[in-house]
């Protein structure tokens, strides 16, 4: 009985995370569309990747134990979701970092709302 209650609560938390992820995804996409240049768009891309992909994946992992019709394969679903979430947490910021650094070095896009540019100063 208690286990059922805990499972149901976890299920609703998971549903909330999935919905939150969808909203974040839309916000990230709008930001990516509306922001003025590449270095500003990096923020929106982070919301799209972490908020839009990792949150729903964790949500699915929380929802999975209550999905009885999946049989024993619901643990497969849960494991796949967790591994993917873990990988995206590691990879998405790293990819953005590599892209931003390379773009800055190659001067493909000008750094426009610029107050101070430490990376430029470091390079000398």
């Amino acid at each position, binding site marked *: 009985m208690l286990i059922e209650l805990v499972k149901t609560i976890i299920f609703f938390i998971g549903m909330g995370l999935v919905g939150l992820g969808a909203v974040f995804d839309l916000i990230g996409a709008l930001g990516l569309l509306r922001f003025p240049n590449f270095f500003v768009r990096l923020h929106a891309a982070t919301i799209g990747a972490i908020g839009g992909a990792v949150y729903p994946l964790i949500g699915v992992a929380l929802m999975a134990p209550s999905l009885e019709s999946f049989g024993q394969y619901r643990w497969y679903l849960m494991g796949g979701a967790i*591994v993917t979430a873990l*990988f995206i947490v*590691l*990879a998405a910021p*790293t990819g953005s970092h*590599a892209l931003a*650094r390379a773009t800055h070095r190659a001067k493909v896009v000008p750094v426009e709302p610029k107050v101070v540019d430490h990376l430029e100063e470091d390079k000398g």
Partner: protein
Amino acid sequence: MGTREKILLALIIISLALLAVILSFGALGAVPLKTIRPLGSFYLYFMANNNIMIQEIYPSITKPSDFWAASTEGVTAILWDYRGLDTLFETSVFFFAIIGSVSVFRYYSASLEEKNKKNTNNSSINTKTSDQGLSLIVKLITRINFVVIIAVSASIAFHGQLTPGGGFQGGATLAVAPLLAIAALSRYFVEDVGLKKNTMLTIRTLGLLIIGLLALAPLIMGLVGGNPYIMENQPKSWAMFIGFPSFGLGVLLGSLAFYNMAELLAVGAGFTVVFLLLTLPEEFFKKILSREVGEQ
């Protein structure tokens, strides 16, 4: 655009329009069928069947286990069992494409030796510094990700007969590890680890050899006792060698698991060879080519 190009373009447009008209009248099934085709139904019924139902559908079959592919996954059952020879030759095509690529870049070994010589002479300043590869963050995270990649590719390949996946898919996933290492850490790191061209060629040949031997095993056993057959997983009740060991419908199902592992080795090593060749510095090729042209 000349006359010839115009005629060619007109021909392309006409043939595509013809195809469109044919399709819109429903010739190839513009709306896909709702029923399953008999061949597909056959595969679906018999891929993991423990002697149930076969005699009801096909009363003429007396030994139901003759058609059993011992896999719960339809595509793998077809790939490595019912159409096993096709997959064997597909792997051979991949193998010979890589042989062709290696022979196109046949100056590889000479240039690598030259590079090594140069490094030892110059006390190897550019190969050991932090100048190689991308930034420190990328290097560290990429090293962490190798663990994830190798684990995922192994799980995809070794569960190929139970869940979607298989040898080729696992190998293509495994190939991302050397590729990321080449991009993020430089190819000298990869060669220092020991993933050299010749080692990879050996592993790849080993994989293909294992596949060939597995395919030929029933034939060799059959030549001894009579009734040989080739490359099939399902037990043949009329043959001397009645099939690979399949422990119920457990983890290890006949020969499919071995085929998948060998294919994982072959494909992963083949892609590593390709990327090692492709990322060779351009200056050595220029030097070698100019020398060869000068000699002539």
